[in-house]
Each structure stands twice: as C-alpha cells, then as structure tokens.
C-alpha cells in the first residue's frame, strides 16, 4: 500500500463513522418530522372539515358521531349513507361501500378513512368503529367520554 492512500487512523475512522451515522439518523428524523407535520392534516373533525376542507380526493380521516336516524341503506345492498356530527352543529354526509364494522351503530363514534368528493360527500373506503364496549378510537375520546366508563365488564387488555 503506498503512503499517500494510507488509510486513516482507527480513531479517525471511528469519528467519521459516528458522524456519518449521526447525519443519517438526523436526516431520518428530519424527513420523519416533515412527513408527520403533513400528517397533522390527516385527521379531521366535522367542524374542521367544513371550515377548512382538505383537497378533493386527498386521503384523510374523518372522525365524529354517527347521527341518530341518519343511516340509509342503498339499493345496491352494499352501500350506506350516514351523517357524521361533531361537537358543534357541524355535520358531514358520508357514503360507504363495504361491510359495516360489527359495532357500527347510530349515536356511536366512528372514524372514516376516505376522501372528500366534489358534491361535499365524504366517500369512505374504510370505517373504524369501536371494537368492543370499552374501546373508543383515541381521536374520539373527548366526544363520548360519558360512554367509556359504563361497561359492566372489567377492561380486557390484549396481550401482545
């Protein structure tokens, strides 16, 4: 090995490696932070969706309560229309095609994944409802705090 390309000393190499690792991980952090800030716009309450609607067709989540008496089954047998209400008088009409979650009922909380359409309807591709009597989607806790404590059953925690 010629003298001019004598590899850097071990100590220096460690330093270079540490710096490179830090640069890469900081870069990951920055990219993540940037992407997460965009995610902040990912979840909407009905009042937010009315005041500052997302771009048409953009994939977002809408969370709120299913308005009592608003569930209408469509003639194709697989679609439903319902209205999601928020804290104030705000409401957003939703259309969903698919199998309804087991605990999807009127007056209960729901998170709909989908996008806003031209006519102001929220087209849901997926509905996240409560999974049992105790579980409330975290985003909705403030909306139906009165319900979560009522269950007779001791809370069950899934071991993972």
């Amino acid at each position: 090995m010629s003298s001019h390309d004598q590899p850097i000393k071990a100590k220096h190499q460690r330093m270079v490696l540490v710096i490179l690792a830090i640069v890469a991980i900081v870069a990951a952090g920055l990219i993540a932070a940037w992407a997460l800030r965009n995610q902040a716009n990912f979840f909407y309450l009905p009042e937010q969706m009315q005041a500052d609607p997302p771009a048409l067709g953009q994939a977002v989540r809408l969370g709120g309560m299913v308005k009592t008496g608003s569930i209408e089954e469509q003639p194709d047998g697989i679609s439903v229309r319902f209205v999601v209400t928020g804290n104030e008088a705000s409401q957003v009409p939703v259309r969903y095609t698919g199998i309804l979650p087991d605990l999807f009922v009127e007056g209960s909380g729901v998170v709909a994944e989908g996008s806003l359409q031209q006519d102001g309807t929220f087209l849901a591709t997926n509905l996240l409802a409560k999974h049992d009597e105790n579980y409330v989607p975290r985003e909705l806790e403030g909306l139906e705090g009165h319900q979560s404590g009522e269950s007779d059953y001791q809370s069950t925690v899934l071991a993972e």
Partner: protein
Amino acid sequence: MIAELGLAALWLSAALAVLQLFAGALALRPAVGETSEIAVYVRPAAMVQAVLAIFSFFALLWCFAITDLSVKLVATNSHSMKPMLYKLTGTWGNHEGSMLLWTAVLALSGGLIAWLEHRLPDRTMNATLAVQGFVAIGFYAFLLLSSNPFERLPVPAAEGQGLNPLLQDIGLALHPPTLYIGYVGLSVAFSFALGALITRNVTPEFAKVMRPWVLGAWVFLTLGITAGSYWAYYELGWGGWWFWDPVENASLMPWLAATALLHSTSVLAARDALRTWTIMLGVVAFSMSMLGTFLVRSGVLTSVHAFAVDPERGTFILVLLAIYIGGALTVFALRASSISEGKRFSASSREGALVFNNVMLSAILGIVLLGTLYPLLTEAFDVRVSVGPPYYNPVSAIFAIPMFLVMAVGPLLRWKADKPARIKIELTVLLAVLIVICLLAAVFGDYSILPVLGLGLAGALAIASFLPLRGRKLTRVPTATWGMVLAHFGVAVALFGMASEAAFTEERLAAMAPGDTEQVGGWTITLDSVDPIAGPNWTAFEARVEAQRGGGAAAELAPQSRTFWAPIQTTSEAALLTRWDGQLYAVVGNTAGDGRWQLRLWWKPFVTFIWYGGLLISLGGILAIIGRLAADIKRRRIVTRAEVRRAELKALRQVEAT
C-alpha cells in the same frame, strides 16, 4: 392454595434477584485474578430464580385450567364454559398474566445463561448476571406491588366474566409467548453488553458468546411478528396483513434493533470492529422491548389492541424504562471512552456494507419510533393526529430501498477492503434483473411505484442471496453461511409477497342472494346458502360459498359472522382458500334485508409468501445458531486437545531431563 404457592414463589424469586444483583456486583470488587467468595452465589441464584418464576407461572396456569373463581384474575378474564385451550391461553390474555409470563421468561433467560454459558471470564459473567438481576427486580416489583396476578376475591365469583372473543383463537395461543421470548431474550443481549462494558471486555470472544443468544431472541421475534401478522390478517377480517398499529410497531422496533445488533455482533466477532456500536445496539434493542411493553401495557396510544387504559401501571413501566435506559446510557457514557477503537476497514468492504445497513435499520427504527410517539406528543398540545400508512410506507421506503440494494451486494464483498470491480459481473446481473422486472411491471400494469420497486428488489435480492455460494463446493459451505443465505432469501420472498399483495390484489364487494354468482381474480364465486349455526359459546350465520377457477374442481369456503355470549360481541370469521399462487379471502357481512347477504371477496396473489418469507428468515437464524455453536464447540475441543498434548509433551521432557 396453589395461588398462594405461586405468589410465595414469586416473592422468593424477587429475593433471589436481589441476591443475584448484590453477589454479582460485590464479586467485581476484588482486583482481576483474585476470587471473591460471594461470587459462588451468583449462578445458583439465577438458576433457582428461573425455576421459581416458571413454577409461579404454572401455578397461574393451573388456576385458569380449573377456573378457580376465587382468584380475581380468573373471575374477570375466564369463564367456566370456555373450551379448555382458551382457558389456558386466557392466562396471558390479560395484563397481570402476560406480565407474569414476561417476568418468567426474563428469569428463564437469566437462568439459562447462568447454567449454560461458561465461555466468558468469571468477572464478565458476574457483571452480566448482576445486570440481569437488576432488570428482573424491577419487573418483580411491578408484578408484586401493582399487578398481583394471584389476588383473591373476598367472595368467590359465581361465574367468570369471559374473555374477549377476538382473543379466543389459536393465534393467541402461540403469538404472545413467542414474541415475549424474543422481547425478553433481548434482555440477555442488554446484560451481556453492560457486563462486557463494566468489565472492559468488549472483544471478539465476547461477541461470539453473545451472538447465539441474540440470534435466538431474534428468531423468536421474527416468528412472533410473522404469527402476529397472519393472526391479524385472518382474525380481524380486514384483509390486511400489517396495519402500522402501535402494538405492531412495538414488536417491529425491537426486531429492527436486534437485526442491526446481530449483524454488528458478527462484525465484532469476525473482525474486531464496531465495538462501541455493538454495545450501543445491545442497549437500544432491549430498550425498544421495554418501550414496546410500556406502549402495550399502558394503552397510551390509539390501538386496536389496547382495549383499556391504565395510566398508573403505565407510569410504573415508564419509571422502570427511565431507570434501565438512563442507567445503561450512564454506564455507556462513563465507559465508552475506555473501549479502544476496533480494527479499521475501507468503505467498500463487507464491514462497510454492514455498517451502512446498520445505519439504515437505525434510521427506519427512528422513523417508526417517531411515528408511533408523535400522536402522544401532539396530544400534549391538544391536537389529535392519526399516523398511518401514508406516513410509514413512503418514509421508511426512503431508507429501506438503499438498504435492500446494499444487502444484495454486501455478502459478495470481502472483509476489510475490496474493489467493486472484482464483482462487476454479479453487479451487472443484479442491476439488469432489477431494471427488467421494474420496467415489465411498469409497462404491463398500472401499479404504484413502491410495489413495482418491491417486485424488482425482491427478484434481484432472491438471486443475490444465493450468489455467496457461487464457485464454492456446496458440501463444504459452513452451516452458518447457509443460515445467512436462507435468511436473506427469506427477506426476498417476504418482499415479493408484500409487493404482490399491494400490486395484484383484486377485491369484490357484492350483495348476493343464494344462487348468485360473482367473479374475482379469475375465480367464479357462488353463494350456496346462509345458515344459522351454534358453537360452544357463540352463535353464527355461516355462508357456504363455492369457489371455482378454470376447469378445476370447486372448493368450499364458509365465512361466518359470529356472536359471542360472554361478553356479547359480534366478530367476522374470514374464510381462506389457499393455493400455491395466492389466497382467496371471504368475509360475510350483514344481510341487506331482501334476502341478499353482503360478501367481501379478495383474491390476493402470492400473499402467503409474506409469511413463508418470515419462516425462512427464522429458519436461517436457527441454522446460524447451530452452525456457530457447532463450530465453536469444535474449535474449543481442538484447543483443549492441543493444550493437553502440550502438557503431556512438557511432562515427558521433564521426565527425560531427570
């Protein structure tokens, strides 16, 4: 009585953990070379503790098996009508039981290293076991002070309150214990890393000792994640196999750290480089296990898994987490400068590739960690956020794609320094395969960019994983190398499954009356009938669906919509039809009222490859353990034999001299 014995055993093991910590720590006080009298207690303490903790777990298992309703945990989580299998699995289907399992596995791994591991210097071993005892004390305290699984009711309950029906599944029987062994197995890596750091013994010899334990934990984690993914896939009935749910992330993060750790341990063992980095990863890997436990057990995050919120216990685990990670980092900061630099290497060498991928894995780990914790952070400012696939998929891909590329090339490079020109042909072939597959997929299909890249990378990686065997006599290839080949090939297989599922899945949603026919992905689906049926603790509507493809015989699927009695809850039982080239997935929904039933059907080409890949990766890990251990035992035997011969020669010479 059994419950009291279990509790007593738990207290005794806690006391032994304290003995293990103090004996191990005091044994470090005499200078190197001197022996300490108290050191003789360290190993027996760890072994007896393991036996007692396991006994305690079996005592709880017994209470569940006989449905002892005077034990509070059994009364709240079990039911006398439940099938026996689910009574038993219900033992760890709740907070206290699963923490007891966690702690029992922790004690077991400590006991195993105390019993089996005799290759390290005594000082390092004592320090390692002291750390292991220290970790165990925290979890015993957690169990005994805030989550006693053996608590009695003042008046025995008349009947148990059941178990969540989602949890009454064979997947639950296998998935959590496997994952726990992996999680907690990483505590061994943590203890070894700190033991070596405290006794300034970070050497290739130490890495060789630690490697099989890391590999073992990693194999269990891989199996646990694979099983968990398949369980979510067929049990939740949503057709997805990974949801970036915080609980899933909690198992993925230790896996990412353990994967990085086992590769950097290999570099340390083979080349005596990356000393501090390996120690750091050992600390990070177990920290991620504990963080995962915290996230799952405290229920602080949005999760389909966390059915309950229990902030008090969450705080307890958080404090433990702070003590262990803080303590480990303090030791690290104090001692890291005393570890001299390892051997150097050039950027284009196998070490270089491994370092690069270590950094990529760490970056992905950071991305998953930030995404998982971000909703907690924003909640402090009263902003509710959900972080989902639109964040995780593209952002982690930024680092995963270069990682897969380097992973294909790394094993072909030589240690220390290599010229990329030497493997020009291999590089050209791999690049050609990657580009051709991507172009074909892009031209003939209308898929998004990530699945297309995934298909190309999977193809290139599948070929690359076998290239290290090129030009070698296959019968002479070491078992550990086969392990690497198989594990890397498993990654390619899993990646192919993921990309195919994302690119080629076909979905059909229909309201069908009996006799109606639908088409999905080349299959003709006929609904025969929908009948009410009853199981041991549920009733259901079962759809009989006939599926037929090409001219083949018809197969029957029977998806159900089940209603359990205790507690009352409805779940969808998906039906799966597995063929070599994919799976047909059927879910039955509600009746539309006019005699029609909602059916959701998916044809998912090659989706099974995801889990076959996971199994191959685990198998590769097992082969690597066997290979490494066998080679090590053989080497030691030769060394011993040579020493004996030398001693004999010396004795002979002395006899001749006199």
